[in-house]
C-alpha cells in the first residue's frame, strides 16, 4: 500500500511532488481554486483537517481536496508535515553504526592529518585527496550527531514566526 501512496504522490499534478500533509490550524481555512485569494473557494477546512500537500506556489500550498480536486491553501493557515518514516531512518543509523571499521576506531588518530587547506585556490593538489587515508573519526562524529525531532520543529517555528512577522508588517 505504501508503494501505491508513493506512486500516487508521483503523479499528483503530473510531477514529482513532496510527500507531505498539510493540517489546518483553525476552522474556516479556505481552499481556493488557484493560488489567489480572489479565486473561487472550493472547500472550507476545520481545525485539524488534513490534506495531501503538493507544491508551493507563491504564498500557497497546492493540495488535493477531499473530493479529489486540486486546490490551494494559504501557507500561514496550515502546518506542513513531511511524511517521514522514523523507523527506516533509525534502521539506517543502526546499520551505519554496525558497519563501522573496528580498526579505524582503535587507530587512535583523533585529528585530521592535514590541518586545513589555506588559500582560495585549492585546485592544484586535489588529485592526491583520493589516495589519502580517510579520517573516519571525523566521519563517526558526524554520524553520532543527532538532530532530535523537537529541534526540527523548533527550527520550523522560528522560520514560520519570521515569515508571519514579515507578512503582518506588510498589512
Amino acid at each position, binding site marked *: 500500500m505504501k*508503494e501505491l501512496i508513493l506512486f500516487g504522490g508521483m503523479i499528483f499534478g503530473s510531477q514529482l511532488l513532496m510527500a507531505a500533509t498539510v493540517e489546518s490550524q483553525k476552522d474556516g481555512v479556505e481552499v481556493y481554486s488557484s493560488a489567489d485569494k480572489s479565486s473561487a473557494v472550493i472547500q472550507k477546512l476545520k481545525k485539524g483537517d488534513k490534506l495531501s500537500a503538493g507544491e508551493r506556489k507563491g504564498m500557497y500550498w497546492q493540495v488535493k481536496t477531499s473530493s479529489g480536486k486540486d486546490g490551494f491553501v494559504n501557507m500561514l493557515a496550515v502546518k506542513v508535515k513531511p511524511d*517521514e518514516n522514523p523507523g527506516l531512518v533509525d*534502521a539506517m543509523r543502526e546499520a551505519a553504526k554496525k558497519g563501522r571499521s573496528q580498526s579505524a576506531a582503535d587507530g587512535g588518530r583523533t585529528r585530521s592529518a592535514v590541518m*586545513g587547506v589555506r588559500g582560495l585556490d585549492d585546485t592544484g593538489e586535489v588529485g592526491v585527496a583520493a*589516495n589519502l*587515508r580517510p579520517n573516519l573519526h571525523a566521519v563517526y562524529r558526524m554520524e553520532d*550527531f543527532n538532530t532530535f525531532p523537537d529541534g526540527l520543529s523548533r527550527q520550523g517555528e522560528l522560520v514560520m514566526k519570521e515569515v508571519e512577522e514579515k507578512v503582518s508588517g506588510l498589512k
Partner: protein
Amino acid sequence: MDGPSFLTSALLASFGLTVACSSWTKKEATDEPSLSKSEQLILDEYKAEVEVGRNMAGRLFTFYGEYEDEGLKSYINGVGDYVARYGDYPDRRYMFGILDSDSVNAFACPGGYILVTRGVLESAANEAEIAAILGHEAAHVGKKHMFNALRAMSKDQVAQAEAEAAARKRPDKYSRARLRPVGDNSESGSAIAKFLTTASGAGLGILQAAKLGMGLLLEKGLDKDLEFEADREGVKYAIRAGYDPKALDRFLERLAETKKKNNDKTVMDVTHPSIPDRRKVIAEILNRMGADQIIGAVGKDRFETARAKLVASGKETKK
C-alpha cells in the same frame, strides 16, 4: 503479481541491482522485521552507500581538515536536517560537517554525508542562503547522483580513472596522511560491493568506488544536468521550508562578483556549471513557483549568532 509487488520489482529494476545482490537482500530481510520489503531494499542499498560515502567524507576531512566548532556544527545540522525534511526524500539520513577550507564549496557523498567549507559559512549572508546550499546537497544525496554516477561508469572509464589516480604523487606536506586505507575483506564488505556493479557489469570494491568518487567530487564533477537539477531542487526545498526564495541566486551572484574581483579559481569552478548558467536555471524554478509573491524567512540574526565564533576568530574571508 499484485500491485505493490510489481512496484517493488520495478523499483529493483530501476536501481539496476544485480541478481547477485538479491540473495543478500533476502538474507538481511530477516534482520529488520519491522520494515517492509521496499524499505528493506532501501536499507540494504544504504549500507553500500554508507561504506562508499564514509570513505569519501573521511578523505575530504583528511585533505581539507575538520573545522571544529560544536555550536556551528549543531546549527548547520539543525538547518540542514530541517530543509532536507522538505525535500522529496525525507526518509533518507542527512549528516552535516564543516571542512576547514577558505574555498567556497560543498560536497555530498553517498549515504548522506554533506560537507560545507568554512568558506561557504564566511561568504553566506544569512540562514536562507545556507538552507538553499544544503538543500542543493541534500538533493544530490536523495537522488543518489554520485552513487548512480559511479554505477554508470564503463570499464574503460574505471580503468582510466584508476590509472590517473595511481600516477599522482603526494606533495611532502601530506606525508602524515600517506597511509592508505586497508582493503575491506569482510563478509559484509564483499556483500555490499555487489551493489556496486557498474553498467558494464564490472564489480567495484568499496575503496575503489570511494576513490573514483573523489575524482568526480574534486576534479571532474557530476554531469552538468545533475548540478542543475540539484540547484532546482535545493531552491524548491528551501521555499517549501519557508525561506526567502531568492537566497541561492543572491549567494551565487555575490560569489561571481567576488571571483571576478579576485580572479580566483577553485574546485567548484571546475566541477560545476558556470554561475550564469546556474542562475538561469534557478530563475526558471523561481518563476514556476511564483517566487515574486513569496515572503520568506532570511534568518540573518540566527546565522550571525551561530557563526560569531568563526567571525571572531578572524577567519572571515577578506572581501
